[in-house]
């Protein structure tokens, strides 16, 4: 049983979800409310990780954050470290990989908010930022939660990208999906099954808890 890998995956998923919340909300807000004609191009770019095979995406992320790229060199001068084969590198890759899973639900939630409420808020002199936090975001809570759950779950099960960017280092980049794959490759089917069952169990509990908390009326049976 690979508790270390499981713990690493959970940490990676939590951090990815938090970062996606921080950058996904403004991105989705811009995509929903911007009057720019060319925003469909940005929408397409955000959705690209859905299309590319994960190992291909991972290979290009590796090139993009490696020591020969401007981004990689900038990171090296700023921190003295390197992104590939590090937890931070995995985080960058996971955020890119799960971007559409956060931004798309956020954006569709924002789009469903009644425009009259937003305009009423503006007319009452509330700033755009305050309107977002006091009107749009509260009315989009279910979509925001959905986006967060999807990002979390997608990162937890991430394989191809981690495979390319991570380098399979115990405790740093060996996530649970990599460790299960390793066990299968080494013909340790029993160990793979144990870890898979633990992953299934934890994922089910997390998802069930989140969906449960989203219910308006908490009850085991319908009350009416």
């Amino acid at each position, binding site marked *: 049983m690979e508790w270390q890998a499981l713990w690493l995956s959970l940490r990676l998923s939590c951090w990815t979800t938090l970062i996606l919340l921080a950058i996904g909300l403004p991105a989705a807000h811009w995509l929903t409310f911007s009057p720019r004609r060319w925003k469909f191009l940005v929408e397409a770019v955000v959705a690209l990780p859905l299309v590319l095979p994960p190992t291909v995406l991972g290979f290009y992320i590796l090139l993009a*954050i490696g020591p020969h790229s401007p981004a990689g060199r900038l990171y090296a001068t700023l921190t003295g470290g*390197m992104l590939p*084969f590090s937890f931070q590198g995995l985080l960058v890759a996971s955020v890119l990989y799960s971007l559409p899973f956060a931004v798309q639900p956020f954006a569709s939630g924002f789009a469903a908010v009644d425009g009259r409420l937003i305009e009423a808020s503006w007319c009452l002199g509330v700033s755009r930022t305050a309107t977002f936090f006091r009107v749009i975001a509260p009315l989009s809570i279910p979509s925001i939660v959905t986006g967060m759950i999807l990002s979390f779950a997608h990162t937890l099960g991430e394989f191809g990208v981690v495979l390319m960017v991570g380098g*399979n280092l115990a405790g740093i980049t060996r996530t649970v999906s990599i460790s299960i794959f390793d066990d299968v*490759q080494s013909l340790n089917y029993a160990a793979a099954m144990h870890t898979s069952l633990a992953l299934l169990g934890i994922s089910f509990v997390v998802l069930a808890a989140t969906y449960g908390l989203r219910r308006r009326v908490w009850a085991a049976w319908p009350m009416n």
Partner: protein
Amino acid sequence: MSVTRFTLCAAALLSAACSTPPSPLRIAAAADLRYALEDVVKTFHQQHGGVRIESTYGSSGMFYAQLVNHAPFDLYLSADVQYPRKLAEQGLTLPGSDFTYADGRIVLWTGNGSGVDVERLGMDALSLASVRHIAIANPAHAPYGRAAEAAIRSLGIYDAVKDKLVMGENISQTFQMAQSGAAEVGIVALSLAIAPGAAGQGHYWEVPRSAYPRIEQGGAILKWTKNPEAGQALRAFLLAPEGRAILKRYGFSGE
């Protein structure tokens, strides 16, 4: 005119349906064979003609798991001898058909931009401060990874460099880590370092064969093959001097 054409078409369709083409020979081949096997198949075709050959490349362990579940391949060419032997023990191969066809060789490979002179330094390149990551295949299940680890250990520098090691799932992915420059040096298969796709991108230094145990590559013909003659013929071709010469040209050594 249209009636004639219709009749002709119908006749063509019927004849195509009646004479079912011979089923192709399907090969499940280790990823390091990608270029070598294409050449082998081409030469084999020139001599034997006839049967169509379809190759699928991938990880030997993955194929093993699929073959245990009766994946519809005729011939299995693994990067290891253990997998075909295990299949034979379970009675999933034609009796006596498992064989060893080549030995893999490993090299230190570095991209042109890395500034590491592997050709001059050899294994000492691994200890350089500028080499921060060394990509190897995962020794837990990849034969090339086991060889790379053994080579590092045999030089007594394992403890000094073990924190630099990053692991790929298979040898081609390991090579990609080095190609991208994210790992300054990779310990990869010679067959990949000299492959057409990689030539000119970097330099390599061959690790002396005394530094690691043989990477025997074995194969077997599966029990459920519909094409045992073609399978046997290709197996014989791989073992004959001509087949061995091709494999050698692509960076494998045989006895």
